[in-house]
């Protein structure tokens, strides 16, 4: 028998407290202070999530010599023309204004040039040095200051509470809210809302080496998919080339930021060769992440890797003082696990970093599902087949703001809908089952297996047979995950939370592998050893997954075509 749940009613329910969730809350509130806004975070509001982990910075065309058109061109070329161009345009055209807002309304400290204007640094794959930053730990500052702004407004914050599932309206016409689980107490709340925003972050944690925070397991994708949403580009998983190698510690896979390569750091194989010479002699280490990661992976696979199975990043020739001053966060992180970034090479591995795919949205963050908005990594289409460094936090903030504006506009038009009570009960039963089993599968062991399978068979370079094998293994793990056991107390039960995490992780991994198997070409972050060429004739399409269906939709080139040298 299921325990009960209480109910909470609000206008705007925001699931996730990264850049997207917080920007949405602040914008919606300021545009309509009468709105009842609730922010739910899986960890502590302001701490959980990945905007905080942004190191490098935020791309925005601020300099008079730069332009949004150039930023757009870089973004779409970087995305191998798979981007939804309307979304990419929204990103680049809003980014400068969002930086000004963060500076003048949120009070973010961005690094300055000697003349007092905002400093911008070099990142890979860009025609201009346009990355706004605060040292090499930009995200901490952005999210801390956004969090501070919440205290100036009447917005309800709910810590350490996860959404289990989106709940449909009784008539099935859209989304009526979400079922929440308060992890500290184990109590459930049915949150009913006129509009719900998914902003939980993506699914790179499905890989053995990954960058995101531990609790971020693609909950948003999994919930959206179960609710019948249309997910796009799920095969597009970005691997960052320089995740630190720190043995079996969970630190392994954490990124050493791209500004190092932007500033001129070398990537070396075990023989001390700058291997990018072989793969992209023109751009070398400043090639886009997809190219650099894959090159490092090939070096490792062909036996030119380091003893720990990585490659080296070497910044020593830049001068110890320069490195220490410019990258203090990276230097400290390295020192703690025995590396001296200022003087010696550091062992790094490609690491799963960012999921370009996600829920299909329009440029106001609306989905096809009435009552559901999606912003940030949970959405797909902005970045196409590969995201540029510095466009991630830009996406979270730009589209979070847009979602907040949309919510302020539509909340007054939307009714509060009756919920589908059977959906609530189904979600409750599924969540509670592991607590009733005295013995069963260990969810942590299943997670390890998912991560190993995805790394080996659905990782940086994939093939049809590997992906088929990955899918079969994931099906088997999905069955096993139904038999997980967790200690029976509901209060602050981390093993139980892991059972719920691993289910979502498997759902997202299966979608990723399925889309990857379908795309029989190599494009951006998606590399097939059995289809090693990009094929614009066949594959300028986005792969969609919805209700167990897979289908293709041609990319609409509203602004730029692959053969055009300049924006249309």
């Amino acid at each position, binding site marked *: 028998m299921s325990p009960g749940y209480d109910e909470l009613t609000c206008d705007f329910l925001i699931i996730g407290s990264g850049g997207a969730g917080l920007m949405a809350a602040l914008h919606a509130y300021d545009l309509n202070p009468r709105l009842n806004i609730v922010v739910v975070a899986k*960890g502590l509001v302001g701490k959980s999530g990945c905007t905080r982990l942004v190191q490098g910075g935020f791309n925005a065309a601020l300099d008079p010599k730069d332009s949004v058109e150039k930023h757009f061109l870089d973004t779409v070329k970087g995305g191998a023309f798979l981007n939804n161009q309307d979304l990419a345009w929204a990103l680049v055209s809003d980014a400068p204004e969002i930086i000004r807002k963060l500076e003048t309304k949120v009070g973010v400290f961005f690094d300055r040039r000697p003349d007092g204007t905002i400093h911008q640094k070099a990142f890979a794959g860009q025609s201009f040095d346009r990355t706004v930053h605060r040292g090499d730990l930009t995200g901490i500052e952005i999210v801390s200051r956004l969090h501070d702004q919440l205290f100036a407004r009447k917005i309800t914050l709910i810590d350490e509470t996860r959404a289990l599932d989106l709940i449909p309206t009784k008539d099935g016409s859209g989304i009526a809210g979400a079922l929440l689980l308060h992890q500290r107490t184990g109590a459930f709340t049915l949150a009913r809302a006129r509009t719900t925003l998914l902003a939980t972050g993506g699914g790179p944690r499905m890989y053995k080496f990954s960058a995101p925070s531990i609790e971020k397991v693609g909950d948003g994708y999994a919930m959206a998919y179960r609710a019948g949403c249309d997910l796009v580009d799920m095969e597009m998983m970005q691997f960052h080339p320089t995740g630190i190698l720190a043995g079996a510690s969970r630190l392994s896979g954490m990124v050493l930021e791209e500004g190092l390569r932007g500033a001129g750091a070398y990537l070396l194989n075990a023989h001390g060769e700058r291997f990018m010479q072989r793969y992209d002699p023109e751009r070398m280490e400043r090639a886009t992440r997809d190219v650099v990661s894959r090159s490092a992976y090939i070096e490792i696979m062909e036996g030119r890797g380091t003893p720990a199975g990585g490659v080296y990043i070497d910044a020593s020739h830049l001068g110890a003082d320069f490195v220490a001053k410019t990258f203090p966060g990276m230097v400290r992180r390295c020192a703690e696990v025995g590396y001296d970034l200022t003087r010696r090479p550091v062992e790094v591995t490609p690491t799963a970093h960012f999921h370009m795919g996600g829920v299909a949205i329009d440029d106001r963050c609306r989905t096809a599902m009435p009552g559901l908005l999606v912003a940030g990594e949970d959405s797909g289409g902005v970045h196409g087949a590969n995201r540029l460094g510095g466009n991630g936090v830009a996406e979270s903030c730009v589209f979070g703001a847009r979602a907040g504006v949309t919510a302020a506009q539509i909340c007054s038009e939307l009714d509060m809908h009756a919920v589908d009570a059977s959906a609530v009960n189904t979600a409750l039963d599924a969540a509670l089952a592991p607590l009733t089993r005295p013995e069963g599968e260990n969810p942590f062991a299943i997670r390890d297996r998912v991560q190993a399978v995805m790394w080996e068979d659905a990782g940086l370079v994939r093939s049809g047979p590997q992906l088929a094998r990955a899918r079969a293994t994931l099906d088997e793990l999905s069955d096993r995950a139904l038999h997980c056991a967790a200690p029976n107390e509901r209060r602050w039960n981390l093993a139980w939370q892991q059972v719920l995490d691993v289910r979502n992780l498997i759902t997202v991994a299966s979608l990723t592998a399925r889309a990857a198997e379908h795309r029989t070409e190599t494009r951006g972050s998606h590399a097939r050893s059995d289809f090693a060429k990009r094929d614009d004739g066949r594959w300028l399409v986005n792969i969609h997954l919805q209700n167990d269906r897979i289908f293709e939709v041609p990319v609409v080139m509203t602004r730029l075509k692959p053969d055009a040298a300049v924006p249309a």
Partner: protein
Amino acid sequence: MSVHKTFRIRRFDPSNDAHPYWATYTIEAKPKFSVLDGLFAILENQDGTLGFRYSCRAGMCGSCAMRIDGREGLACRIRLENLGATISVEPLRSLPIVKDLTTDMTPFFDKYRKIDPFFVGDSPSFAEQTPEPLRVDPTQPLRQSANRAIDCISCGACYSACPTVASNPAYLGPAALNRAFALAADERDREADRFALISGPEGAYSCRSIGNCVSVCPAGVAPLAAIQLLRRGKSASAT
């Protein structure tokens, strides 16, 4: 050769236990393991009921602050190889316990909120027009000291280590006062009255200059220095 470490963990489930107690676990300490890795090894293979808080595992979110061998720190940044054969792990002090090593941060953030921790610009609402950013000289001394103060990750280590917080429940504590200083030193901030918020008996003048906040801060912030500058700023503005 494998290295083993023994964890003595202060455990307490307020709903079930009359008193906190010590539980002991031994794990294989793999190279470069942090205290957090050790806690996961216990949770995943030995005792699924252990409670602790985590998120980024890289020293950026401040979720895993706890007392390790009697001293506050981030579990993700302290490596087992730098500790002895037996490691004691306890929750932060001066905060209620949710379970085991997980504390309720509500009192910490309630006090943080009291200093109006939010920046107030010329045009604070997102519904209003956005002004052009000011030019800010990066070498200006106030900007530089504020720049150091903003590195706080609100982990609560200083709050737990502060004897004044422990003895005076109303005291705002090092992190909140440090934030007040960062805003007071920000030439762009327009809130005039922040000094009034920190000059009462719960504010900057209750600090006894012991400096634990500085020595435990994992982010290299010096709240004590910020508090001293706040006091000086207050007297300067009074004259």
